[in-house]
């Protein structure tokens, strides 16, 4: 391992991608991911690799499609509004079975919103933002260090399944500087006998395509995709837990929100309150089983998100039995505050739900309506 360097999240993701053997990067400016495309504009050409500032996010994702079809490790990055424009291309990548890595450094929405941190693109990332039945592995790093690790891994996972992979960060992960140590692992892209172009030398023509008008063919392809999604669920799930063994209240949070929750958990523990934390690292696949197992002994769950409540639907789907589900969310670029989260913990564990609490954005005993 090398020496620690102090880097912004966006630049560290770019460097990790380059170290993962990225051949081709295509981007379009949008805040708060601009450092990523700027880093690529310097370091990709310097290594003789492809960098294009495309005319739009739509063009960028389609250039990714072309480079991936030619067998290259390819990537694009953007933020919410630009990721919305890429959804068509992401659906096509899945349909044509092309590996690629897409980075979303989330900002407040909907619409043009703002450039503050947000986690409101969870549904778009995990529930198929484009058309058709599909999934992709979604990583939600909680530190600059972890952002580099999942970026390196994302290229292998994309190649393994011939499917796009999404890295879901937010404006804090993208903008903050932290020490980071890069892995000195060597990238090992697999052979891609399905790729287009290059001298064929007797190889039969290849085809990259997501269309068939013959009855049953696209259904058959979907069953193949389904089998890949099942393999991803089996092999790629990542999460971590803190103080799960004796927790009376489990926090559930991902990305930068999990860092805030970890602080709250430590403060609560210092006060003798048995609070734990579950942090999904992959949002798809989601740790349904782990959460269900904790629900057998922990009877209070508190989900914290920078949204009106999106991941909470998956927490609910885990099957919580008779455990209660609480929520604290800050949409539109709001960042959850430690004191607000602590207020809910006090309300549940100390005051046993007596009286009212005024915490902004808090919904107690959240239900799917």
């Amino acid at each position, binding site marked *: 391992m090398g020496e620690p360097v102090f880097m912004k999240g966006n630049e560290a993701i770019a460097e990790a991608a380059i170290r993962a053997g990225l051949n081709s990067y295509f981007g379009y400016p949008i805040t708060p991911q601009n450092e990523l495309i700027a880093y690529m504009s310097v370091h990709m050409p310097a290594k003789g690799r492809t960098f*294009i500032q495309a005319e739009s996010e739509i*063009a960028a994702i*389609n250039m990714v499609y*072309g480079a991936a079809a030619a067998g290259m490790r390819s990537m694009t990055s953007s933020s919410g509004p630009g990721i919305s424009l890429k959804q068509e291309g992401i659906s096509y990548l899945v349909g044509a079975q092309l590996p690629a890595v897409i980075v979303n450094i989330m900002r407040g929405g909907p619409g043009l919103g703002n450039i503050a941190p947000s986690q409101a693109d969870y549904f778009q990332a995990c529930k198929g933002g484009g058309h058709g039945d599909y999934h992709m592995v979604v990583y939600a790093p909680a530190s600059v260090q972890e952002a580099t690790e999942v970026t390196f891994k994302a290229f292998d996972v994309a190649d393994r399944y011939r499917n796009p992979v999404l890295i879901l960060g937010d404006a804090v992960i993208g903008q903050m500087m932290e020490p980071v140590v890069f892995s000195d692992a060597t990238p090992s892209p697999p052979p891609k006998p399905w790729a287009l*172009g290059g001298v064929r030398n007797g190889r039969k023509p*290849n085809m990259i395509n997501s269309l068939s008008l013959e009855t049953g063919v696209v259904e058959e392809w979907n069953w193949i995709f389904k089998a890949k999604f099942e393999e991803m669920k089996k092999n790629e799930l990542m999460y971590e837990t803190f103080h799960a063994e004796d927790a009376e209240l489990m926090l559930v949070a991902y990305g930068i929100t999990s860092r805030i929750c970890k602080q709250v958990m430590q403060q609560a523990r210092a006060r003798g309150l048995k609070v734990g934390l579950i942090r999904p690292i992959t949002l798809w696949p989601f740790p349904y089983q782990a959460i269900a197992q904790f629900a057998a002994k922990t009877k209070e769950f508190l989900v914290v998100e920078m949204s009106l409540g999106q991941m909470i639907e998956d927490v609910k789907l885990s099957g919580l039995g008779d455990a209660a589900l609480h929520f604290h969310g800050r949409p539109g670029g709001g960042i959850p505050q430690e004191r607000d989260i602590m207020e809910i913990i006090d309300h549940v564990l100390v005051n046993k739900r007596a009286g009212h609490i005024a915490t902004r954005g808090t919904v107690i005993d959240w239900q799917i309506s």
Partner: protein
Amino acid sequence: MNDKDMIKVAGRSSLWDDKPSPYCPGCGHGVVHRVVCELIEEYKLADNCVFMAPVGCSILAYTFLGLDMCQSAHGRTPAVATGIKRSLPDTFVLAYQGDGDLASIGMAEIIHAANRGEHITTIFVNNAIYGMTGGQMAPTTLEGQTASTCMDGRDASAGMGYPIRICELLQSLDGVTYLARTTVHTPANVIKTKKAIKNAFEVQLNRKGFSLVEVLTSCPINWGMQPLEALDFIDQKMVPQYPLGEFKVDGKSAAPQA
């Protein structure tokens, strides 16, 4: 003379699988495909070539042409072709697009690929209508021409816009090296089309920048005409709106001369 003494001077391209054509009677795609396939064979490019099939009737090329094939999203072919060509500079990248694909939904992509001077060759097939979806108005539909979304004819004064001239539009871009408009409604024009596409191929093979040949073709089914009437329509209606000739040669603008 018996059969043994006969020499075969023309035939089906070896790149073309022995399958029935998916195109309608009188459609121009078959002729353009043939010209393109003949040139791919003459330049011996088949072993290192990617054919970009668009969204539109000619997407069906992937079902019978013996080349590496890439299908892209509607209008995005120039961006996808850019991704392939930048990855594999020695691979011949041939983008084949129709008028709805290139001149409507994909207008941004074609302008910017051309402006970057991508080393790709685009065959732009202009039949002034959406074929695959059933004859809707295209950006290139002539004024007064009927379509399923303008039953009384295209009326610019009613806000339907004017027929777009792509060669004239791209002519000002410095990244464009070769630009020509041809037609395939007579044998002589088929030969001129082949010559223009050959010039465009040479531009890519010599890494001189972006090349595009616009080919006027017929769509008798969606125009509601007999095949011969459709050829007359090209001659009498389309050519006056879309002048034939070379618009750019070696990166220099030229006054079109058919």
